């Protein structure tokens, strides 16, 4: 039977605040264990939470970024469970009245099409600490530095149909939250963690099958692989006439498989109730409008603008608007050389190619946007050919100066002086008598092919610096 997979994602996004959501302890990553866990984070008796204004602002920014309804009155709730990295015995979260309501999110797929993914809700909550199960004399070690770090949990509708769409959604989400500046989005540091809800149903039907939840997947690649192997596992079960068990599973990257996390499923009864230590959070329209006014141009808007303004394909516009830094860089190159399509091409092929090979980000590029624009301008004014430009770019990458400096120092300027070119063409004709005879004996159709040989020879003599258009014209004139 053909199965259709139904996927929903829950992303836990660490918000870029300097202090915790309910305490004044710092949130810096990588500090020595428990040096950033204050009395509130440790749940010392009598400690009370006080909500961080910036966490609220980040959540509202996100809500406006996906065109969602903002909860004018949102409420915090206690989610009760026992685990040593949660010292209070409950997590402060939001249940009935989240800060961000329903929204929509447009993603661009690799084939150039776009899809809209529904966002069910997004709510604020606190992170838990970390449990280390290594050898502590049969004990577990607890580090509460992360306890109380603000999280925004973003929940999608079951709108996603395959691994590629899931990854496209996560990449678009990453792009949005970094544009908004509400999170660094760094999956390797746990700033963006993903839970995957996945079920199968016979293709063409509408009812939802029993789902499994894969917890805490921490890279784009693992999300793709985890979904692929979970689809395979569930379809194997269903093909054999079995039933999928609703459970929490873990993706094991080394074995490339998912496995059940809990042997005996303790009922997920979190007994939510309103957090009595926090009052309802009221957000008025003035506040929302002030936040809206502070929003930058968002990735989707930029993508549409790049396509319209510069005539780029959806794919190219998507690549170039992926991060604010890259988009700014591209626009600076386009402004400097005056040709956006050339700029798009050079940024995507040469620059991103080199950056990827060197594992550098756009901010670390050794070639500035102004310098790359300067190089392209020399192609456009026929000072150098595209081929020579690639050589010049290599030298620029190695820090040997601007395009003009390198062209000057290495004498790479294209030869457009007709006298000099004519001498070269004459020499090539004199040196290749046999080919000249062959050319003159050939008909018009064959000549077009044969002339390439002479152009190549002239380029060789000129070390690639001859103006190809002028060479072609001279050859056509002289070979008669």
């Amino acid at each position, binding site marked *: 039977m053909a199965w259709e997979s139904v996927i929903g994602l829950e992303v836990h996004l660490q918000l870029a*605040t*300097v*202090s915790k959501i309910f*305490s*004044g*302890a*710092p949130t810096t990553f990588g500090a*020595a*264990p*428990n*040096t*950033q*866990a*204050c*009395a509130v984070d*440790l749940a*010392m008796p009598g400690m009370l939470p*006080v*909500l*961080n*204004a*910036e*966490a*609220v602002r980040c959540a509202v920014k996100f809500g406006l970024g996906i065109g969602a309804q903002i909860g004018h009155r949102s*409420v915090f709730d206690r989610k*009760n469970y*026992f*685990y*040593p990295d949660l010292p209070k015995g409950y997590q402060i979260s939001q249940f*009935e*009245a989240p800060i961000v309501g329903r929204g929509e999110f447009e993603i661009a797929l690799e084939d150039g099409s776009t899809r809209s993914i529904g966002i069910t809700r997004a709510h604020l909550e606190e992170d838990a600490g970390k*449990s*280390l*199960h290594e050898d*502590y*004399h*049969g*004990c*577990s*070690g*607890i*580090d*509460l530095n992360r306890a109380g770090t603000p999280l925004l949990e973003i929940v999608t509708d079951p709108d996603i149909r395959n691994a590629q769409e899931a990854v496209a959604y996560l990449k678009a989400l990453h792009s949005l939250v970094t544009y908004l500046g509400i999170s660094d989005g760094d999956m390797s540091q746990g700033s963006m963690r993903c839970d995957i809800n996945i079920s199968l149903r016979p293709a063409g039907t509408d009812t939802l099958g029993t789902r499994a939840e894969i917890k805490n997947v921490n890279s784009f690649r693992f999300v793709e692989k985890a979904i692929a192997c979970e689809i395979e596992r569930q379809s194997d079960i269903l093909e054999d006439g079995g039933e999928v068990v609703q459970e929490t599973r*873990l993706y094991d990257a080394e074995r490339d498989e998912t496995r059940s*996390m*809990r042997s005996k499923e303790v*009922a997920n*009864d979190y*007994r939510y109730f*309103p957090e*009595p230590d*926090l*009052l*309802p*959070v*009221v957000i008025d329209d003035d506040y929302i409008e002030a936040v809206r006014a502070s929003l930058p141009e968002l990735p989707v808007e930029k993508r549409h603008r790049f396509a319209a303004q510069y005539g780029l394909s959806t794919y190219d516009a998507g690549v170039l608007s992926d991060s604010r830094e890259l988009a700014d860089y591209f626009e600076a190159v386009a402004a400097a050389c005056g040709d956006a399509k050339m700029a798009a091409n050079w940024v995507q092929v040469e620059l991103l190619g080199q950056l990827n090979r060197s594992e550098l980000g756009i901010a670390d590029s050794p070639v500035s946007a102004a310098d790359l624009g300067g190089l392209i301008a020399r192609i456009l004014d026929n000072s150098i050919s595209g081929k020579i430009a690639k050589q010049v770019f290599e030298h620029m990458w190695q820090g040997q100066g601007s395009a003009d400096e390198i062209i000057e120092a290495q004498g790479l300027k294209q030869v457009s002086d007709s006298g000099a070119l004519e001498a070269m063409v004459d020499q090539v004709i004199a040196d290749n008598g046999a080919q000249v005879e062959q050319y003159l004996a050939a008909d018009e159709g064959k000549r077009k092919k044969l002339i390439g040989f002479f152009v190549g020879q002239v380029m060789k003599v000129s070390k690639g610096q001859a103006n190809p258009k002028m060479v072609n014209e001279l050859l056509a004139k002289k070979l008669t």
Partner: protein
Amino acid sequence: MAIDQHEIEKIAQLARIRIADDQIGEVTARIAEILGMVDRLQAVDTAAVEPMANPLDDTQRLRPDAVTEENRREDFQAIAPAVEDGLYLVPRVID
């Protein structure tokens, strides 16, 4: 609304409360009484009443995003039963 002994045991487990075997009957009966009172309250028509998240007629104040707490790990760990390498040690937990 009735509640049976099995449910009381489950709730006690979720809340990590130990109830002695000879007391569980009495606990069940008393909680059933409380639920009886809830049943009476449920009979009141509350259709026009907005759910109350907090009895105080006020809204949450926010604090500015600033670090105000210093590292006091030494003080906190001095009263912990077991610590090592800066970590709090607890009975082993594995998922």
